[in-house]
């Protein structure tokens, strides 16, 4: 504009002309008609849809977007607005400037959307016009709801999870893991069976996803099968029921295992007696006499599939009489161990006879004389293992200590509620299992599991603990004598999310 600095520019005032139709004075525009006359002349909404029918599923509150997608949307929400605008054909002819809902009664089955569009008419003039589109909402159940209604127990894919051991510790732990990761969100039914749990899904891909999740947290072996339910010869549609049979390896934490000779050799002469220290999707085996450890992943295990010799139900309590450290503390795969010589006696023997065992233990860093420990009584056990027989001339140690026992301390705390609690999955108990599930046994096993959680911080790693509102905090403070029983520190507890109005949001927030 600098070159015009020297020029004199007259200020131009726009005059007014009469609208060529109605004669009212107006500023001249491209059509030289006032807006009303232009509107009466040209209707830019001609040819656009004003009346649309949309299908709505009353069960799950979703709307159908043909051919097959059902979109979940609340009334007067952004998703519904996008959906409604998408359903309009021919909207590409005009430019959409604004869209909003007009309020209608919720049960009137009508949705009204006010749209503002612009289009060019008559040599350059752009005309803007608002108009209302009415959507008639017809109720029509979506496919999944129809299937659920027709047969509520109908499932398409099932996962049968089994572990052939006599306790349910793994399943308690798995339950907590599943809750933490929300892996069973798509399961339509979960059933507790003898030695396992069954999960039912409405879709094969949900089952496969869950199976993959299981593969990541436990060493499993699975096989799958399908059964034809129906067949449409015209469209060649086949409906199947898919079943996945999943078995978890029977080796659990703290199990004593006698490895078959081939495995010993393949693992580099890791002594035939090993302890299992950790089970995730791999198994970690620790040789207590040499403090060597190794990993075995699911494939490797299932190729040899050895069983455990003794499991934690057969632990016996010992009292430590003397401890002599042999080596310093070493860090073996994340946990600390120290080799030590110890003199122990069974608590059942203590005071009655003089049976004392001198053993090597890997818990030297934890034990002091006078402590109690749990261990496997190989001296008194009658092991009927094929693998053990293969080792000729192998001398079994008398006792293998597993962990320190806090039984005494727990005696004091018995009956007092914990300050944390766990959530549980919504499981159906199968009433047809020939009465094998013993209530009492289940309860004591669950207690053991909770005690386990308290004592092992690494077990708590993948689990969500919630603060117990009913717990009275004051009583614990008075108990400060001697060694503190290991307990869950308060920071690890997730306060239970209390969102009163938005209970459904709880699910999404956990994910």
């Amino acid at each position, binding site marked *: 504009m600098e070159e015009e600095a020297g020029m004199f520019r*007259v200020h131009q005032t726009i*005059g007014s002309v*009469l609208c*060529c139709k109605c004669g009212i004075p107006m500023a*001249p525009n491209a059509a*030289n008609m006032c807006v009303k006359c232009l509107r009466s002349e040209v209707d830019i909404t001609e040819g656009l849809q004003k009346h649309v029918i949309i299908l709505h599923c009353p069960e799950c509150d979703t709307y159908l977007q043909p051919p097959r997608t059902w979109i979940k949307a609340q009334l007067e929400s952004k998703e519904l607005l996008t959906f409604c605008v998408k359903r309009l054909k021919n909207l590409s002819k005009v430019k959409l400037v604004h869209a909003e809902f007009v309020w209608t009664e919720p049960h009137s089955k009508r949705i009204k959307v006010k749209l503002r569009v612009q289009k060019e008419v008559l040599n350059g003039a752009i005309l803007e016009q608002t108009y209302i589109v009415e959507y008639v909402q017809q109720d029509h159940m979506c496919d999944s709801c129809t299937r659920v209604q027709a047969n509520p127990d109908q499932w398409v894919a099932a996962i049968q999870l089994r572990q052939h051991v006599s306790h349910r510790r793994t399943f308690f732990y798995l339950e907590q893991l599943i809750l933490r990761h929300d892996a069973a969100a798509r399961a339509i039914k979960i059933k507790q069976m003898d030695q396992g749990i069954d999960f039912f899904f409405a879709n094969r891909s949900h089952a496969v996803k869950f199976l993959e999740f299981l593969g990541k947290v436990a060493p499993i072996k699975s096989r799958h099968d399908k059964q034809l339910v129906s067949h449409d010869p015209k469209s060649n549609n086949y409906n199947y029921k898919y079943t996945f049979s999943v078995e978890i390896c029977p080796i659990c934490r703290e199990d004593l295992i006698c490895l078959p000779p081939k495995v010993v050799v393949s693992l580099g002469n890791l002594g035939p007696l090993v302890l299992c220290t950790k089970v995730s999707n791999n198994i970690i085996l620790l040789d207590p006499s040499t403090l060597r450890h190794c990993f075995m992943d699911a494939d490797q295990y299932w190729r040899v599939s050895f069983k455990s010799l003794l499991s934690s139900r057969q632990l016996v309590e010992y009292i430590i009489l003397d401890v002599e450290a042999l080596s310093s503390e070493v860090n073996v795969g994340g946990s600390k161990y120290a080799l030590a010589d110890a003199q122990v006696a069974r608590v059942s023997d203590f005071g009655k006879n003089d049976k004392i065992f001198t053993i090597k233990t890997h818990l030297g860093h934890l034990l002091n004389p006078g402590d109690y420990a749990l261990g496997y009584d190989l001296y008194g056990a009658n092991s009927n293992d094929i693998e053990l027989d293969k080792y000729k001339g192998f001398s079994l140690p008398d006792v293998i200590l597993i962990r320190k026992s806090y039984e005494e301390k727990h005696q004091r705390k018995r009956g007092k509620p914990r300050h944390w609690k766990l959530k549980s999955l919504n499981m159906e108990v199968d009433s047809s299992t020939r009465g094998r599930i013993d209530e009492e046994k289940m309860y004591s096993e669950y207690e053991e599991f909770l005690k386990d959680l308290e004592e092992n911080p690494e077990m708590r790693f993948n689990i969500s603990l919630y603060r117990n509102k009913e717990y009275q905090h004051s009583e614990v403070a008075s108990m400060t004598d001697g060694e503190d029983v290991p307990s869950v520190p308060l920071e690890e507890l997730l306060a239970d999310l209390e969102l009163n109005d938005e209970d459904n949001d709880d699910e999404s927030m956990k994910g």
Partner: protein
Amino acid sequence: MATRLQFENSCEIGVFSKLTNAYCLVAIGGSENFYSTFESELADVIPVVKTSIGGSRIIGRLCAGNKKGLLVPHTITDQELQHLRNSLPDQVVVQRLDERLSALGNCIACNDHVALTHTDLDKETEEMITDVLGVEVFRQTIAGNLLVGSYCAFSNRGGLVHPHTSIEDLDELSTLLQVPLVAGTVNRGSEVIAAGMIVNDWTAFCGSDTTATELSVIESVFKLREAQPTAIVDEMRKSLIDSYV
């Protein structure tokens, strides 16, 4: 008195005809309706001449003139020129111009006293205009358009210009032309005034799309309501309705 008519279904009658106070030129059309409308209005007063210029029918846009003369482009054939000379009254000087901008009707707008021309017209052409038409020539633009002959139509009594003309421009033009001017449209919002209507001191003709509003504007600015041809004596002493919209 403004009349509405069409030339072969087109409302742009200013393209196919030229009207001055002394004569009227009409294009040769397929049907005689166009010609007969002019005849019925003007036959007693001024000659209505059928012609073509250079074989084309868009004579309104190719020539420019007033009661004193008529300027035609170099594209006109000798025969047509002769025909014009024969048909028009003797006091009208028909002059052929050698001008690069040959659509003289688009470049020159004039009445009997003043003319507005395209700014790029030759100097000789300007002199020729002054001589033949006996007018004062002003080079102007209307609402930023160079084709003054298209975007305005004026007679000795008033004028109609392009609707987007600003008020300052309107004042300036009015001062130059010494007639009242108004910005308006013709043919239902068309901005090309001179193509949509032709006018002289007592009558005007517009395209049939012209709305009543536009017609009333035209009649008021060109003062056609009371106008009568000066050669005819008014015999209707008691006229109830002079004209109605």
